[in-house]
């Protein structure tokens, strides 16, 4: 299982992120979004940002999670390379508790290839594929980013 892969899209960035659990798919989706902008191997883990989100549906939760990561990138002027997510059911629907690891942008070490403007809902989906007999199930999140 690859953590994520980019698919062809003429004007924007489209990716599929995979995980053996929903949590892992959420984490890899955030990583795919960040990696579209900057090489994650250049990011040092110097600081952690906590994230708490509640949403009515899983799709809505993923959309808000990725939008929150983008928001933090911009207002904190920080880049990230480590995402840890815990998901649980709650009264509203779903709750995400996350920790994002990274550091402040250093223009000497972080070179941006593109700027992600936003997460779109175009072709947005989360699906579970049952593995072959006895194989593990794989969660896939498909996202198109506006760049």
């Amino acid at each position, binding site marked *: 299982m690859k953590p994520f892969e*980019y698919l*062809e*899209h*003429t*004007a*924007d*960035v489209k990716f599929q992120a995979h995980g053996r659990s929903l949590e892992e798919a959420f984490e890899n989706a955030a990583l795919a979004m960040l990696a579209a*902008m900057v090489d994650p191997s250049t990011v040092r883990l110097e600081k952690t940002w906590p994230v708490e989100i509640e949403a*009515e549906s899983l799709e*809505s939760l993923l*959309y*808000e999670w990725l*939008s929150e990561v*983008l*928001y933090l*990138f*911009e*207002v904190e*002027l920080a880049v990230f390379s480590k995402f840890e997510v815990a998901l649980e059911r709650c009264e509203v629907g779903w709750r995400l508790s996350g920790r994002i690891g990274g550091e402040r*942008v250093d*223009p000497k070490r972080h*070179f*941006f*290839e*593109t*700027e992600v*403007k*936003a*997460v*779109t*809902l*175009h*072709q*947005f989906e989360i699906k579970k594929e049952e593995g072959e007999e006895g194989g593990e199930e794989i969660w896939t999140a498909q996202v*198109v980013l*506006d*760049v």
Partner: protein
Amino acid sequence: MLNKVDDYVFEVPMGHQKGMRVPGRIFISEKLLEQVEPGTIDQVANVATLPGIVNYSMAMPDAHLGYGFPIGGVAAFREDGGVISPGGVGFDINCGVRMLRTDLVAKDVTPMISNLVEDLFHDVPSGVGAKGRLRVSEHELDEAFTRGAAWAVEAGFGVPADLEHCEENGQLAGAKTEHVSLKARKRGRPQLGTLGSGNHFLEIQRVDKIFDEELAKKFGLFEGQVTVMIHCGSRGAGHQICTDHLQVLSKAVRKYGIELPDKQLACAPLGTPEADNYFGAMAAAANYAWANRQIISHWTREVFERYFADAKLDLVYDVAHNVAKIEEHSVDGSKERLYVHRKGATRAFGPGRPEIPDAYRDVGQPVIIPGSMGTPSYVLCGSEGAMRLTFGSACHGAGRIMSRTQAKKTYAGTEVKDSLTRRGIKVMATHPKMLAEEAPEVYKPSDEVVDVVHNLDIARKVARVVPLGVSKG
């Protein structure tokens, strides 16, 4: 399959997609149509399923794959029974372009081009996450959201004549800051007066060809003249406003029982609180973008004055190419108020419209079509065909034909820079990597796109301008 209706007019028939309420119309040449992906045509059909759509779901000759609406998409909705959708505006609300004309000619400016571009690159912050030189207060931010370029001019960035030469006078009515989230404010405050990145640019240009002497004179343009073009939008504030309201409108879709073929087309019936609130927040973002381009214009003038003491940089015009607006159009012989969505399309009003400044009203509005980096840009003049065919709309640029991933595989940023330098174009960017995905070759040839709108009398060709120097994020 598409049906050819006329030269440059192709119809997406009703059967293309379940639930279409009107057919689609793509205004394009056969040659350009060959480069349009099937997905783009599907997106034109998807828009045609939205409630209250009038006449056709349209696409301009620069149409390419987007999200929700295609890029180059135009659709109008009637006030009674129609909808408003952020999918028809995009995240970069009021991304747009303005052109300033100087009284200088290329041979005066060329020896100074490196200094000018370096100073512009330094004085107008750009790049991913760039913070501005400005430190605006919360009150000033409110003013920018509410009054756009009018606030910027009052605050000392520009002259009153600038406002007259902006679409909507740089101030879209109906902005509601109470529907702009704290997050949008936090992103917007440090970024006012920044160019951004991607395809946004600040370019010094030379008028290289005049197609229509009379119209060129009207717009104050002549061959050899130096012009400046600013292409940018509402930055993080606009992106966040769209993100926030897309969530609200997704819920509205369920609440009002609207069936959608694409979740990005989330919308709400006009007259509902969800629709009103989105319109108010979108207008605030549009005003932020006009304030942004106004501030950048002021700094551009300061740079020119450093090298040319008497330099006069007058605004030719400022157009929005990602916006939804209330406009009056003729439908089946009677005047109707419509919500016109333009997503990667430029307003191109023909002669006589009251929205056009006095100086241009008898000929039509200037339509400014930015090229991609290193390729020509065009100035057109809105015409009768636009009023008849496209709710007063024209193309907005060249249109991508190669994905960013493919562009990065094919071109190296440094090569792109070298090739522009060899052609005498001075380029400054935060990092050469950023240049690869904007290589000139990844776009359709802009002359073919412009010829289509000219031949349909949507907008007439006035002048072509070529780059002398570019500052990019």
